[in-house]
């Protein structure tokens, strides 16, 4: 795991300031999407060897939700952006 995360608002900060929520690839289904879609959203996760996109929160800093792209093999963090920018 990376030692530093480059927060787009606060700059590179120690990862202890951040908390992870998990997979950012899943998008919340339509309320009427049906049980299978909701089951997939809530319970199914892939665990690829390589790049992961995850939701992290700078809980000890600006408190913004971020999308962190990191490689679980090399531990490299490839990109960090504010989650709201990506969601819009």
């Amino acid at each position, binding site marked *: 795991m990376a*030692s*530093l995360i480059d927060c787009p608002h606060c700059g*590179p900060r*120690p990862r202890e300031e951040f908390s992870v*929520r998990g997979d950012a690839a899943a998008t919340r289904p339509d309320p009427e*999407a049906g*049980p299978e879609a*909701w089951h997939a959203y809530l319970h199914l996760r892939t665990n690829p060897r390589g790049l992961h996109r995850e939701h992290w929160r700078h809980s000890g800093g600006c408190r913004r939700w971020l999308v962190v792209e990191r490689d679980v093999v090399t531990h490299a963090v490839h990109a960090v952006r504010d*989650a709201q920018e990506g*969601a819009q």
Partner: protein
Amino acid sequence: MSGRRLPVAARIDRGRPIRFRFDGREHQGFEGDTLASALIASGVGIFGRSFKYHRPRGVLAAGSAEPNALVTVGTGGRQEPNVRATMLEIFDGLEARSQNAWPSRRLDVGALNGLLSPLLGAGFYYKTFMWPPKAWERVYEPLIRRAAGLGRAGIEPDPDRYEKTWAHCDLLVIGAGPAGLSAAVTAARAGARVILADEGAEPGGWLLDDGGDASSALREDLLAELRAAPEVRILPRATVFGWYDDNVFGALERVGKHLPPDPDRPVERLWRIVARSAVLASGAEERPLVFAGNDLPGVAMASGIRRRLVGQAVAPGRRVAVVTNGEAGYSLAAALESREVEVAAILDCSPPSAHDPERYAPARGDWRGGQAEDWRGVARIVRGRPLRAVGMRAVEALEIERRDGSRRRLAVDAVAMSGGWSPNGQLACQRGARPEWSEARQAFLPPIDQPGLHVAGAAAGLVGRAACLADGARQAVAALGEIGLAAAPAFDPAPEDAPPPRALGAQGSGRGKSFVDFQNDVTVDDLARARQEGYGHPELAKRYTTSAMATDQGRMGAVNAAVILAEAQGLAPGAVPLTTQRPFFSPVSFGALAGAARAEAFRPARRSPLHAWSQARGAVFLETGAWLRPAWFPRAGEPDWATAVAREARMVRLAAGLCDVSFLGKIELTGADVPAFLNRVYLNGMAKLPVGRARYGVMLREDGFVMDDGTVARLAEDRWVLTTTTAKAEEVMAHLEFCAQVLWPELDVRLASVSDAWAQMALAGPKAREILGAVVDLDLSDAAMPFMGAAQAPLRGAPGVTARVFRISFSGELAYEIAVPADLGPAVADAIMAAGQGAGICCYGAETLAVLRIEKGHVTHAEIDGRVTAHDLGIGRMVSAKKADFIGRAMLGRPALTAAGRLQLCGLQAVDPAQAFRAGAQVLNAGAAPSLEGAQGHVSSTCWSPHLGRTLGLALVRDARARHGEEVQVWDGLRGETCAARIVPPVHFDPENRRLHG
């Protein structure tokens, strides 16, 4: 022992004697001494006993890899085991003790273990002491654990201070020998921000050990330039122990362990250094030679003897044998000779093929005479191999075998050994890279050029001062180039000195133990046995024999072990790799890792703005999460807490009570889309909440289970404030921010946590209205301020201050919550108490709050335990059927979440008022055997109710709503108690809510 101080120049200050104690005896050294040098100088040879065989051990090396001379320093809370005597600078009042020796280090009963050694070899605990089976746990293991091991940690709290800090730099240079100094100077001249960390008390590395005038002058010049450079920080006594992701390095600085205790100074400082690039110039560790008795006190590394000779003018003995396979032994002999220490012989054990009479020409340059035989007329160079070091408590002789097969016994009292050099490249291999064998350099080399870390000098396998100076400069230029900084090398390229010597396996075949890993007592025989038994793979051999598992992590012995394992398989050196490297490079104390995060600071307590106010009124505090909450307010004459709580509960229902509820999470919301947002995060309708009203709300998780509950109040057209439970304040805030930022960024909502900005109090009881009316300027009539009303009003005493008033009730009484800016909390609380004095007001704490809410069937996280649905709690009717979407809606409809047989919330009442039950107990059918089998549910909360005169509880019981009136047993399996109880509706008291409406 014959170690002694020589009357020659050195870096000790003979004008500053230092007195210290070792094993209770007073010794004297000088400023500039380590414990090792000072004790050797005063003739001490045995520093302690070894791990397994209790063999006498002296000092082997000179730096942080020292495996033998481990001592315990300090007493009481300052007791620190396994301190390397070679790293400990002495100070007045230092108290050190030897380890693993009883009754004394010279006469040790445990040495009998040596006689048992056939039973104690590698893997002995898997094979011996197995019979009878029960004896292992009761007899053998305790005995073995007592006999084995090194120092013991103290159990008292450490009174010293440790601290942690961060640092940032362009270039981190690890090691301040020739390569490191050269790298740092190169970077400093380029204007880079540089941190130079060195393990020693003084920077310099080999430039110090060399002892020559040229080296000293060069060191002075380079250090002077670095000290004058504005962007260079030199950290002496700092060991860089780990290389982590994003080029963050961990370093341990010994700030005050070499000084008497001082409360104003930390003893150690843990650095986390963010380096844009780094140069690893950590030098090389000299390899021991493996022959019988190579662990006897008096047998030591040539480099260690040299460091003490040059630095502290300490001679290892009166007559020294030097056993070497390379240049190091020759140059040590010259250094001893020039200080009038007799060198009995140099035993050159380099293989015939490697021997070249001229290869050590540079060393010989310092040497008197050219041909060995000419040197004082004695055959001083012997080609052959060491067979055995002989002696009881110290070396008395060295048995050698000449190349022609003849044997000889040299009477000596010290043996210097040098088996070549192992580059200290461990740090460069901590992130997955592996060292590779270099035939040319006869060593395992780390990768030289990794992004962010460039290895230079002896750590890269180079030999000689000029070559290391040039390489340090070259690697600094490369490292700086990587981050876009141009630099010019401070030193020109230069050739290396003598080629590195050949790596050797086990020498000799003399009787006795030949040690490979000194600290863990691992011998050549252990490695051979590991291979015989199928554990020849280096990772397996390591674990089977514990070789390279000691605190030096194999820095002394790992290469020898790999070469010996290779030889045993008929392979060349290097064919068997080294084991995986991991942090830490050398031991790091728990104190340093904990830093300031200990005792109260480990998890700082959160205190309400009314904490001191409650304290002044005699509150007893209770930890809930990070909070300290007033639990009850005992009065004089109350024999126990239960009496106080029952009295408080009665006073609230009879008159009025004031309770600090500042602990609740408070979140303010503004924005055009707050109604829509709230509608989507609560299961009930929130969109139409009018100004001046509050509403109870329940939040679900997306999987349909209840997350939290609280109230939402709309204070103004564009301002809402919601409360969360104390426990979930942080989680709810994070959840709402996720909803606002990620799920629905299109909604215009802004959130702010205001939990700490407000002091909030609950004022409950039939007299609450008249008391509050005296404090806030607000019409509190039912018409103006009905149940679930919310308002902002000025304080009567301070019209400029606006209080927030909510008519909400957790107690079931006519009740208000009043919130004021945090700093005004105590004054407002005082005003309320003063206004209520005539009415009979009291303060009440969390315990009474619990009694009141259990009587009223209100839930907390004891009930909302992550497994309950709104339906389970009996609030299924709150779920809005009109809303198209809210968090949890989609999964709420899963059949299993409303199926028969689920645990539902209910009340429980003890049938016999004299009997009680506790939370956590199981609910069993009447007449059922006490067993978890067939359990109907569990008790979540209980209290003694002064109003019903019996024990009450809330419970989650199978299909409870259909079972009201049924008698069950409450079984406490832990205490073996059962109690008859009746299932009742959750609201035990005033089910019609008459009191609520005043």
